[in-house]
């Protein structure tokens, strides 16, 4: 449930605002901070929300497996982004990359804070896909991808999610992860290889069955 705060600009979903705003994503903020050409005014911010909001939400819910937590993370990420908008630096990454870096840290903090295993609501959502009348082949393929993705270690899964949901370049991915670009590439390569392996394995098992 959300409430509106007196402050004109605070992304104050109650679940988010009921706890103190941590500056734990300072690293990411600083990594991509000073990142925008000019100021990120409220109008540009609204545009950013329109373009990236659903992706951030998808990333968070895919990582956390919890809708409420994902909404918390999303609101927190946008709030932090807005608060630190004056430190943007265009040379160090796009606003989208910055946003995802903040969201990533917020999501990890959320996991760490709640000490909660990701819950997989995706299964139910996938069932809803069938109801939407999509092709059975698509539904089954996504189920395979979902299982393979869920089988990945969290460290590798987050790389894949950041890459596909965030649509980040390799350099932006590296900056969001706080590692070198070559390391990020290696990690992405390994994660996708393992994802492919998982998909092929699931496919083989299904063929055998």
């Amino acid at each position, binding site marked *: 449930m*959300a409430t*509106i705060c007196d402050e*004109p*600009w605070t*992304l104050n*979903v109650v679940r988010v605002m009921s706890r103190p705003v941590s500056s734990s994503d300072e*690293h990411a903020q600083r990594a991509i901070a*000073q990142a925008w050409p*000019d*100021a990120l*005014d*409220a109008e540009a*911010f*609204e545009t950013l929300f329109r373009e990236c*909001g*659903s*992706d951030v*939400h*998808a*990333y968070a*819910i895919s990582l956390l497996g919890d*809708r409420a937590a994902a*909404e918390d993370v999303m609101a927190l990420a*946008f709030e932090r982004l*807005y608060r630190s908008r*004056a*430190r*943007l630096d265009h040379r160090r990454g796009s606003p989208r990359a910055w946003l995802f870096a903040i969201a990533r*840290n917020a999501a*990890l903090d959320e*996991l*760490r804070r709640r000490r909660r295993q*990701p819950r997989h609501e*995706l299964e139910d*959502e*996938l069932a809803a*896909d069938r109801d939407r009348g999509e092709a059975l*082949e698509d539904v089954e*393929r*996504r189920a*395979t*991808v979902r299982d393979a*993705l869920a089988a990945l*270690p*969290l*460290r590798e899964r987050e790389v894949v*999610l950041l890459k*596909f*949901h965030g*649509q980040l370049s*390799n350099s932006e991915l590296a900056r969001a992860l706080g590692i070198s670009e070559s390391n990020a*590439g*290696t990690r992405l*390569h390994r994660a*996708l*290889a393992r994802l*492919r392996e998982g*998909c*092929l394995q699931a*496919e083989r098992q299904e063929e055998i069955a």
Partner: protein
Amino acid sequence: MKVIPFPGGGSASPDEAAWLAELEAALNGDGDGAIAGSWRQLRQDVRALAPPMDLEFERQLRAQIAEQATHSAPKQPHRRSGWLRPPGRLGSAAGIAAIGAVIAAVVIAGPWRAGTGPIEALPHQPAASSNAGRAESFDHLGVSAPKGPFRAAKNATAQGSASASAGAASNAPASAPAAGGVGSAPGRVQQLAASITLAATPSDVQETADRVSRLAVSDGGFVQGSHVQVQQAGTSEANLMLSVPSAKLSGALASLGQLAPVRAESQSLQDITNTYDAARQRLSDATAERQALLHALSRATTEGQIDSLHERISQNRGAIAQARSALQTVSQHASTAEVEVTVLGDAHTGSEGLTLHRGLHDAGRVLVVTLVILLIAAAILAPLALLIFALLTARRAWLRYQRERMLDAR
């Protein structure tokens, strides 16, 4: 086939860079062919796995963003003017720390503190040890009625009988410490002295010296000697030697400090109990001798004895007078304190007659003081900043470690 066979597999290959470039191109829509299509398909599948955002949540968030857009439209924070922005929590803390450090530095280095600050060495800073033996070298002082705790002793000595004088004097040391200004000890006879250096403009030296004299008189003291030297160019100076009641020494110094800025101040104390006791004993002995001579005179029977006794009594009278005078001098030393006042009229201290040279000198002095303050502030702030930086770095590293560990744990 349910899964599009996107490429990849095995450990990092030597062609990893090319592989990543191909992936990047495919995801950006630049690549063609089945492989690029498979990458895009995979991305689409992964993105399709995530359930859509809750409509109510999205609506609220969007509404708040739109509300903000209407509230803060003209706000244009730029990095160039970032320092104009309201400070955050860290900035506020840093600002408070900086202000505190500057205040501390100002307090430490403040030029108004006596004897400190960027002021040249003082010509007179008599130390307590330099006053050793002063008690025995006060013969040049003018004789005045002793005041304070020794007055009763002196008066009794001067007027009354020798025994009464000795008795009164013997009581004096017990009350003498009440007059002591610095570190007086019970039952001791102590002599106080002080030295103070005042700063004044050259034109104010004479006036300040006059005010010092008037102050000494108003405090029940007097000016033992003074020397005032006023020069058209260079340093003017006045030296005054005051004698004030010991009981009023502290008050006198405080009053002197209000006449002009104090550059230096010192106080000294010398114990003269032995000198006092010796003088008192000599007087007592002489008085006893007189009593004995008078007694012998009353019993004398011959002219020769009477003449001899008269002569000895006459000599004894002189001895008594001498002993009494010595005791009076010592008492006076204990009941009065010497204050050496130096008024320095530095040519650059004044504000009159503004000249380029004086202005430059003053500006230089202001700069020096400012630099000293900044230096002290930096000395306080630098370790503080290092500590805060180290703490922040450690905290950041700890958070990062926790996140990474959490990733590995799952």
